[in-house]
């Protein structure tokens, strides 16, 4: 059997040379000092392959046009089996690549492995770093939610500030006016058609150069016997790859990738935040107020990239031990501290996302369709612990009947009597709200009970208690004296609404609305609630 197999391999190799090629590749000799510090290149390559794979998988369920893009991402997240995991791997993998690529560069830098004759390897590496960032920038737009839209708005504006070529960059990105279908198509094309083959070619060239010059030896490696890449170093690489993969997999499974509301260019209350690895640039721009914009957006980043590319030509000294490269370590430390400080300042400086911005649109969102009284009912449902006797999801049966089809079995009068008999101290308001909710529940929307956020429940209770429905409609229910509150987020900012509550006369002259001086957290809750209403009442 073994003999047959060997014969087959030999015959195969005579015709293709693949076996000998692989052997040559694997049994490459590497310096004695090689070891754990050199695993990052392999990990980066592995992660890029994971990105290619998960990217292709996502493309199988993704529609690359605005609007459809959002629905299809939501479809992947909520309907497709393992879709959440697949997007999680792609999303967190992107962040992880940045981390690993930077670690890889830091290692090469500290060990001085870019020195003659390996300058080319280093420069190709720097270009690969830039490509990695380009993936991040272009991929950011593809879910087409608010975060994607407003983040990319900033990116393309920055591109436009480049002296001389700025307008052409804008045109290339299709963003001369606002971001729309053209920009989307350009970003998608870059992300899936241009960048992947470019990356593959450059990685090929990078690895070729590594092999051509051999793994950079340490200063005392000359006298020592060489090691074999396989399996000694491959073992270390595999362990590192496995650790990276395990972390990525757990993150993808456990940390849900956010999906915000569908991109809405008229949303004036949205604060865009870049991806974490771009926060330092964002903060640099903030610090550099007073100097021309191009300094922060173009000149400084260009200088930084140039410094990276030129590093091997500036540092031309002889190869020395890592421990003696104090200056290099100092530079890395300074860069790390600078980056960390700027990032931290950026995080502290940006207002935390509002409750409305934090809603996960990849989760159940049917609660947004509830009328305020029904929503208040959800609050009382939890307050009165109705779920100690009743199910609203198909779960283990409880003492009381499942409530999803109550409306088919009982009318309001029956429910009022039921509450009087079984629930002590239920006020008339509470009873009415619960009945409204029961009449709304169907087997298709039972998740509203668990998915409606607390602020929306509280907000609806405040809305009801203060008699707001007498004048205002929400989701088609309420009076017509004041304006309907659906789509309020498109018309006003949250600050405006807060002030309007406190002093209606000042904000809109001639209004008959009395002032409401809500204290926090009531004010926050009702404003957040109003800002999460759908733009249009259901069915309109």
């Amino acid at each position, binding site marked *: 059997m073994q003999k047959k197999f060997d014969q087959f391999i030999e015959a195969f190799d005579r015709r293709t040379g693949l076996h000998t090629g692989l*052997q040559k590749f694997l*049994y490459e000799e590497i310096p*004695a000092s090689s070891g754990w510090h050199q695993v990052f290149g392999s990990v980066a390559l592995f992660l890029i392959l*994971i990105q290619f*794979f998960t990217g292709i*998988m996502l493309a*199988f*369920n993704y*529609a690359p046009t605005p609007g*459809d893009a959002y*629905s*299809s991402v*939501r*479809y992947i997240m909520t*309907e*497709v*089996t*393992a*879709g959440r*995991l*697949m997007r999680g791997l792609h999303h967190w993998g992107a962040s992880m690549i940045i981390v690993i690529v930077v670690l890889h560069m830091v290692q090469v830098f500290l060990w001085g492995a870019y020195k003659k004759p390996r300058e080319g390897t280093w420069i190709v590496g720097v270009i690969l770093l830039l490509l990695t960032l380009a993936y991040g920038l272009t991929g950011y737009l593809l879910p087409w939610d608010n975060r994607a839209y407003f983040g990319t708005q900033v990116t393309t504006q920055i591109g436009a500030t480049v002296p001389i070529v700025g307008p052409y960059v804008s045109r290339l990105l299709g963003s001369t006016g606002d971001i729309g279908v053209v920009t989307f198509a350009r970003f998608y094309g870059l992300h899936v058609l241009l960048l992947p083959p470019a990356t593959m070619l450059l990685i090929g060239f990078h690895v070729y150069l590594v092999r051509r010059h051999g793994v950079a030896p340490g200063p005392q490696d000359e006298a*020592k*016997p060489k*090691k*074999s890449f396989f*399996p*000694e170093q*491959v*073992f270390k690489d*595999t*362990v590192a*790859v*496995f650790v990276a*993969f395990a972390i990525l*997999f757990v993150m993808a499974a456990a940390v849900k990738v956010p999906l915000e509301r569908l991109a809405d260019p008229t949303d004036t209350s949205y604060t865009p935040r870049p991806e974490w690895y771009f926060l330092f640039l964002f903060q640099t721009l903030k610090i550099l107020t007073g100097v021309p914009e191009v300094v922060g957006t173009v000149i400084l980043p260009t200088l930084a990239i140039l410094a990276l590319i030129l590093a091997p030509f500036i540092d031309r000294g002889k190869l020395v031990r890592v421990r003696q490269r104090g200056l290099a370590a100092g530079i890395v430390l300074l860069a790390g501290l600078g980056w960390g400080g700027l990032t931290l300042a950026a995080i502290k400086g940006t207002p935390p996302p509002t409750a409305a911005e934090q809603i996960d649109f990849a989760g159940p969102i049917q609660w947004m369709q509830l009328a305020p009284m029904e929503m208040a009912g959800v609050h009382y449902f939890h307050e009165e612990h109705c779920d100690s006797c009743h199910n609203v999801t198909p779960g283990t049966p409880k003492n009381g009947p499942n409530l999803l089809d109550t409306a088919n079995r009982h009318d309001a009068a029956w429910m009022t009597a039921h509450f009087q008999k079984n629930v002590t101290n239920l006020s008339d308001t509470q009873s009415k709200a619960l009945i409204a909710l029961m009449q709304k529940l169907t087997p*298709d929307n039972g998740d509203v009970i668990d998915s409606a956020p607390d602020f929306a429940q509280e907000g609806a209770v405040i809305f009801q208690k203060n008699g707001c429905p007498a004048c205002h409609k929400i989701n088609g229910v309420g009076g017509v004296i004041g304006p309907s509150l659906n789509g309020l987020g498109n018309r006003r900012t949250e600050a405006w609404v807060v002030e309007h509550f406190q002093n209606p006369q000042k904000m809109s002259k001639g209004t008959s609305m009395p002032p409401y001086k809500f204290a926090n957290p009531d004010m926050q809750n009702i404003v957040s609630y109003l800002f999460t209403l759908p733009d249009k009442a259901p069915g309109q």
Partner: protein
Amino acid sequence: MSQENNRPTMTTHGATELGTAETYGPTRRAFHLAVIYVLGAIIGLAMAIPTALYLLIPPKPRGRTGWIDAGDISQLTPGQPVEVSFQESRLDGWKLSTEKKTAWVVKEPDNKIVAFGPLCTHLACPYHWEASEDKFLCPCHGSEFSIDGKVVAGPAPRPLDRYVTKIENNRLQLGELKRSIPA
């Protein structure tokens, strides 16, 4: 491939694990190989299983479609199948699409109403009623069905599929299209 044998034993920085000099002997080599293959296999499986689920398990159908009105049936004559068309809304992936669909409706001698799916059970070509031959004929591969949907000739493996039906106020309501069982 026997590099470990002809390599001189040499200490790089004193004794390492196992208290021996840092040699690369067959035991360590075998251990390294085992770890490479096992970890590689775990990663492969951890990707292959979700991928298979992702591609092969269809998403749960959402929202139950009710009955679809397929028109008035009081004018039907027994023995004369009629092709009716109707609109059906369907959740197609992430899109709600409305499609025109058809059914062949037959009034049986005992006044029972049957609605056949419009596609041949062989390779899903649309068939039609040939009044002169009193048969449903499929133009693609010559399958023929009798008025009660049974296969009379040709390659079709099973009778015509039927819709679940009910009649309300003389109007035909169509439910799910049930796959027929081979005779």
